[in-house]
């Protein structure tokens, strides 16, 4: 889809966060990783809260994790999401120790449980935007 035809909110990346979004376009889930102490952090930010280093790199995540919580939204709050209601949003503990939220695909919303294994997948939203989703692992 052309970007101008897309009806939902889009991210507005900064130099701190752009590699995450670029990674998604290449089918990779990249997580920010401290160059000093090696700890992974998400969402991306300038300073490592463990050692205060501002040097960081990006590490490709395995893309697997377990459900930490979820919600099934029956109200859109933004007109762009109305056509696809209800939407299931899962919060996932990634194996790397940080969390990520995304919509669940191919799942049974009624049967969700804590700790249920999922893996990340990638969906093109526009020519210039790929969003992560989770599918049952």
């Amino acid at each position: 889809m052309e970007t101008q035809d897309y009806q939902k909110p889009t991210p507005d990346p900064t130099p701190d966060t752009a590699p995450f979004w670029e990674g998604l376009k290449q089918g990779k889930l990249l997580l920010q990783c401290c160059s000093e102490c090696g700890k992974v952090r998400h969402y991306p930010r300038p300073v490592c809260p463990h050692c205060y280093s501002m040097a960081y790199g990006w590490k490709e995540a395995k893309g697997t994790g377990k459900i930490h919580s979820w919600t099934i939204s029956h109200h859109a709050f933004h007109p762009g999401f109305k056509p696809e209601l209800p939407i299931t949003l899962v919060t996932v503990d990634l194996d790397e120790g940080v969390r990520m939220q995304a919509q669940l695909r191919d799942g049974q919303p009624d049967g969700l449980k804590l700790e249920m294994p999922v893996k990340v997948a990638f969906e093109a939203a526009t020519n210039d935007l790929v969003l992560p989703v989770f599918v049952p692992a």
Partner: protein
Amino acid sequence: MSLKGKAAITGVGDTRYSRQSGKSVSTLQMEAALAAIRDAGLDPKDIDGVVAYGSMAVVAEDFITNFGIPDLRFSAVTPLGGASAVASIQCAAAAVAAGICNHVLIPIGRNGSSGVGGRIGSRVREMPQFRLIGEFEMPLGAIAPAQLYAPMARRHMELYGTTSRQLAEIAVSTRHNAILNGNAMMTKPLTVEDHQASRMISDPLRLFDCSLESDGACAFIVSSAERAKDCAKPVIQVLGVAEGHPDSPSAITQRPDMTRLGLAKAAPKAFAMAGVTHDDIDVAEVYDCFTYIVMCQLEDMGFCKKGEGGPFVASGAIKIDGKLPINTHGGLLSQAHMAGFNHVVELTRQLRGEAGKAQVKDAKVGLVTGYGDMGDGSIAIMARA
């Protein structure tokens, strides 16, 4: 030094609450501010401090312009969303205790239902503290607080067996109190069955788990303990006050324990400062943007253990005649969504004995909390001097 006893709430005021005020936000705030100033027995020119609400729809200087205040000596904003009102008490108490000013006006006014500022889904998108959510969650469809907070409630339910019917008890008792109030938007009795039949917004939160969108304004005045004695009404002392920010304050998704709010850090400080125990609290006005948030705060303040909030609220303890009456005005769920400023107004009226049909008998010590901006918390413990 602590802020215990250094400040008092001396004036409170409010407008009618409605779905369509037909007035500007500025007019609403001036109306509520003048009512609070009159209530305190002050002249508008006595106001020498203003803590304006974070939306910045009305700023401190608007009160100089409208009231002709000759020397406004203190202005601030406490950008904690729904925790702002009570955080403003700490801010103003510190200012009056330091001798910067004497009488701090703390107003809110909004056309949250009808207005140009838009309803909640669009308002939060404009707030700077929602930058992380705006980039990483809103594009996925997690737009509004109901959706962002629902995973906290869901996890609590899965870990502790909390049920939707238990949350309903909060909505039901709050509605009961709103009907007694006389200035509440919701005046029809509500049952647990009505709650269970209400439409699902973002599972597990149903329509009647969610607060209102409202037009209106309210305001209160924090004065120095010394100058409070000159005011017209009984002095309501601030005994303990604190704010607290949860870990990962701006993104619930990344919070180590998403069932623990910033209030868990603030409450022990406020109780210690006040020198009172939980059993001393006669009435509590607890921020209620969602039923779950009320229950979680009761746990985080220590009125029951983590995980026991469901049985606690279902026990009848929180009803107007229970051992801890809460939200005696009808709260954000049933009176009006004034971001918890109406909770401060109500606690003041309860402790003065001015709460009408919802008056808690012999209410001497009470508390008010704020919650907002993804989990920030604030608490003030107050007593009639």
